[in-house]
């Protein structure tokens, strides 16, 4: 295995594009090193992105939009009070990934690129309408986070492409988001079901919403019907019931070692209801 420390994303993309064997990018390493240790992935080229200037930067622009560098670890998201105030759901999603130790290394970008349908960092990003900057051998492009996952372990990134940063839109007034996942223990597990809700209010009435589910389909899913169930309401019990029902209906999970299909369908609705209440309270500044 060759270990590379490029000093720009262009260089990283070039190395990856020219590689003939197995290539992996390294940021936090909390997925790649596990795969290497288990012998599942034995890279020929390992490209460490952490020497590239700016990868650890996290900034809020004048318009309120956020840029999060590719190597910013989870622990630093939670330590940024402004980010927590703007996008608490995004932060809590990432903070649920692994232990305190893993938080010292794991990144949102890595969580996204690992391609797990159960990635805790992703549903809230999608609910927030986040985008990513991609550098490839032929230049750069920006696409929606939602368009990255392509199924378990797969992304839409092409050979040589690497994500350099994640962008979150400006939070704006009267908005709130939340992410909840279900795991059997209190920590350290992969989500059996995950649900993020992002919404904005006018007074008590929800004016816009996005509801996303993780671990109930090959990729994170956006549930339009669930959002529609609560838009125009003040999140009364009837709206919550419709929301839960829409989330459960949209869920199309498998049964596996982490939970049954029936359980995931049921709990998708439960989490949607609970996450919506939290997001609503946050939007109201409670």
């Amino acid at each position, binding site marked *: 295995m060759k270990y590379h420390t490029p000093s720009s994303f262009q260089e990283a993309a070039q190395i990856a594009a020219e590689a003939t064997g197995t290539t992996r990018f390294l940021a936090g390493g909390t997925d790649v090193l596990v795969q290497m240790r288990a012998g599942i992935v034995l890279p020929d080229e390992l490209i460490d992105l952490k020497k590239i200037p700016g990868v650890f930067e996290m900034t809020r622009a004048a318009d309120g939009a956020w840029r999060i560098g590719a190597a910013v670890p989870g622990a630093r998201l939670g330590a940024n009070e402004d980010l927590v105030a703007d996008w608490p759901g995004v932060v809590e999603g990432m903070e649920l990934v692994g232990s305190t130790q893993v938080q010292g290394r794991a990144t949102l970008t890595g969580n996204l690129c690992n391609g797990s349908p159960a990635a805790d960092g992703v549903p809230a990003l999608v609910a927030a309408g986040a985008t990513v900057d991609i550098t490839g051998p032929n230049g750069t492009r920006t696409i929606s986070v939602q368009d990255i996952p392509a199924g378990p372990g797969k992304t839409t990134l092409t050979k040589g492409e690497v994500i350099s940063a994640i962008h979150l839109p400006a939070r704006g007034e009267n908005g709130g988001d939340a992410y909840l996942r*279900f795991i059997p223990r209190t920590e350290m597990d992969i989500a059996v079901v995950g649900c993020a809700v992002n919404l904005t209010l006018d007074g008590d009435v929800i004016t816009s919403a996005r509801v996303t589910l993780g671990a109930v389909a090959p990729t994170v899913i956006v549930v339009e019907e669930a959002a529609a169930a609560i838009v125009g309401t003040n999140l009364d019990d009837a709206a919550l019931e419709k929301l839960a029902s829409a989330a459960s209906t949209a869920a199309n999970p498998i049964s596996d070692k*982490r939970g049954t299909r029936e359980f995931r369908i049921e709990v998708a609705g439960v989490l949607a209801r609970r996450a919506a209440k939290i997001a609503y309270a946050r939007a109201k500044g409670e």
Partner: protein
Amino acid sequence: MAKDEYREFRLVGTRPDRPDGLDKVTGRARYGADMTAPGMLWGAVVRSPHAHARIVKIDATKALALDGVKSVVTRADFPEGLTGEDWNLQENTIAGEKALYDGHAVAAVAATTRFLAEEAARLIEVEYEVLPHVIDVDEAMKPDAPVIRHGVSDTTVPEGMSPNIVRKIEFGNGDLGAAFAAADLVMEKSFKTEATHQGYIEPHACLGQMGSDGKGEMWVCTQGQWYIRKMCSAVLGTEASQLRVTPSEIGGGFGGKTTIFMEPLSLALSRKAGGKPVKIVMSRSEVLRATGPTASASMDVKLGMKKDGTLSGIQVEFRMQGGAFPGAPTEFALYCGLAPYKFGAVEAVGYDVIANRPRCAAYRAPGAPMGSFAIESLLDEMCLKLGLDALDVRFKNAVVAGDRAAYGPKFGSIGFVETLEATKNHPNLLAELGPNQGRGIAAGYWFNHNGETSVSMAISEDGTAQVSVGTPDIGGSRASIALMVAETLGIAYEDVRVNVAETGSLGVNEPTHGSRATFASGKAAVLATEAAIKEMCKRAANEWGIEPDAVEWADGAARPAGPNAGQFPPMTIKEIAGAMGSTGGPISGHHESLPDGVGASFGCHVVDVEVDPETGRTEILRYLVVQDAGRAIHPSYVEGQYQGGAAQGIGWALNEEYVYDDKGRLQNSVFLDYRVPLASDLPKIDTVIVEVPNPGHPYGVRGVGETGITPPLPALANAVRAATGVRMTHLPMSPSKVLAALKGR
């Protein structure tokens, strides 16, 4: 030796720092993987990816072609003709004709680096013919089930049953028909528990060296260095005395490190590589796939109870699979499950069944948790039906000294009633419960064990003492043994050093298992110390010119025994030791035996839970362990055993299980998915140490390590029943299962 239970002790019952504490908080303590040797090679093991497959061909050509690969071994490198348990050990060490489970070792390789050994292992080509497999115990018993191996069954198994049934256990007493007829309520239920792993945090690791002369050395994390020696020698066809085994510090065992796995492979690789030492360290995945899980169980219980709570009769059939070899702890499950109560009539049947899973190893009170889960759950259900208090019913039927256990022997001094008494008086039973919360109570039992024991001790020139024991210190036994020896000698705790010896320096010792270290090594250490004391009294007698019988030992000094013996000032241990070079030479003591006087330990646990009705998730609100220790030599480590046992039982009850896919491959071979309890999953675990001293031990010790894992399974099931109204009969009570039960699915 009779001891007054009200006797005051100077050291026994205090809580000094453990002797190995400093090493263990500074990272200095050396565990299995921490040792290296000059010229050392690394070993890696090739494992079957199939649950059941004929091994057609093994081709190591490509592996051996790599620079730095020094040896490859397959079954062909091991002697033929072994029988019985020796064959089982050899077959489990390295597969012969067939791979019997996912993870079964089929070849091993040694190379100059770990990466090279792993690469070489990947290059060893194994051709398999995949065979039908069976995982579940009830499936494995069916007449048309895939047969793991013919000819394993012993004579207890009736003709016509599946060859996978290898042993049938039957015992009972009384007229069951009449007993059920006399009952006011007879209920029957079936229960299942899934296989769990001991989950020690330290993976198996060894550093083995063997020359062509059959002489060898091994450094290994184990609960029993003599077992390693005996088993490796049997598997390799070498002489036990020529192998010297040194136990490392051990990072947890819980029964799982009382046998061999890859240790003979390191010796075989070393022998083939010209005697270079070979280190093998298992990955977590190897640990979970190929080392000692416990059995899985399927159990039927039928119980008769009178309106006042008196038990009239019980019928049980337990079926347990213990992997691809005989040895599921079915009779222990029956014995321990039935031990706590006077049942009236008993009819017990058990089956030991083989299946395509890793060979089960002992796991803390082997069998007892499953048996108790089935019996204590049904008992609880019947108390609810008859409107009786669960603790009162246990009092009413509890065994006391002199009662005959369902499996035969009479109980000696036991403290079950005292344990129930202490439970009843605990404030946790008064805590108020809210919605979706419930309280569960259950009892448990473990025999405790003596085992072959050899201990030696010696007085040093400065009057301090060293003790060599053969039982590795897993949870503070150096401290408890030092306390007892210092108490007996009348010297300071700090003046005793307890060493865990390698196989070359003591007679045979069984492992630290069966809750025996503080009982058996402790008792032997006290007896060895008394031998040394006798010698010191003799030295004083010689000096004083009186009969040795006229000298007694008290407070660390020889003294004339009464005024008739003469007037001499006490001769201290320091004086006697300082002069020993000129008074007859070294002063030491030793003791070898199967120490008699084992005392059984009963426990009772009370747990409060809250179950989320929308997700089926169970949260533990408070937890109480009450258990009879006989006497707690070092109470902190007794509490630690209680708390650790409870935590493991909680894991077993709620989340831990072996999950297989339809090909018989283990699906959760990492800690991410094999869910042991976390710090954030548990509350504080309250403990009460009941002390009904065991008259068979000089300081009243019973052994405390194992009973504590038994009650949590039924206690949690009973608590979930109380919180939800749903009786969970299949462990673990994972959220999926609980929610399905709540929804009536």
